[in-house]
């Protein structure tokens, strides 16, 4: 799980072009949206692409997306549960 969380942080930074952010700057339990990383709706869509590209998991609709992408930890949990 720890490795997954670490990988996820790096992938998020790359996918969302968070150039001034290092993996150690991201707390896996903190909300991704709202404050902190300042992610927006397009970032949410890119995270959906990331899920599919890196983990083969489809997040179909906006409502599922809200709970999956709450934090790095919720993303990691979702991947652990659903990875093919």
């Amino acid at each position, binding site marked *: 799980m720890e490795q997954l969380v670490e990988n996820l942080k790096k992938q998020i930074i790359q996918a969302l*072009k968070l150039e001034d952010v290092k993996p150690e700057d991201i707390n896996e339990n903190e909300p991704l949206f709202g404050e902190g990383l300042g992610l927006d709706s397009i970032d949410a*869509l890119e995270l959906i*692409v990331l899920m599919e590209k890196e983990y083969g998991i489809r997040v179909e609709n906006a409502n599922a997306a809200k709970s999956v992408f709450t934090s790095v930890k919720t993303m990691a949990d979702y991947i652990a549960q659903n990875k093919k």
Partner: protein
Amino acid sequence: MERFFISDHVRISNGQFSKNGNLIFAEDKDEPFTQTIRAFYKSLEIQHPAFYKMDNLSKLGFCAAELLLKDHNQLSLYNSQEVGILLANENSCLDTDQEYVETIKDPENYFPSPAVFVYTLPNIVIGEISIRHKIQGENIFFIQPEFDAEFMVNYANGLLESKSLKAVLVGWVEFYQDKYDAFMYFASSEKSKQNTLEHTVDTIKKIYNK
């Protein structure tokens, strides 16, 4: 007929960033654009994380506007709806279009990128500048084979004369396959202390072609 004035102008090309004819910042002209523009952005010492998400065209336009409006505060004279933006280029956002095509062309590796797709419209650079500087007036993106000073100056003057706008950012923001050229200026009825250049076709042609 009322006269209008250019308070500042900037040029970014070949690694050189100039304002009112003075070199402000320079990088090696053979350096890839992404590095050049990142170096310039960092030199600005501003906090605008959305910069990194932009495509090259928007980064170029954003930086041109930042260089133009830095330290002068011309915008504070007007409310957001009184200022507009007129930009043009030759290649639209073709560079970004090609980048987006890369994300969809291989059926085995098909991952259309929303973050790239959103930049596949040339006017998005206007959107980025508008958001950064809260500019809400008339804004149009034109496609021209080369910078058409005659059209842009006359159209901008028309907007200023009719009081549709009190000030306008006009420019050429071109990026394609690592070749870039941005020219941008600020025109209004105000004469600034630094510049008394009249906003005419001849003046703009002279400045652009220097």
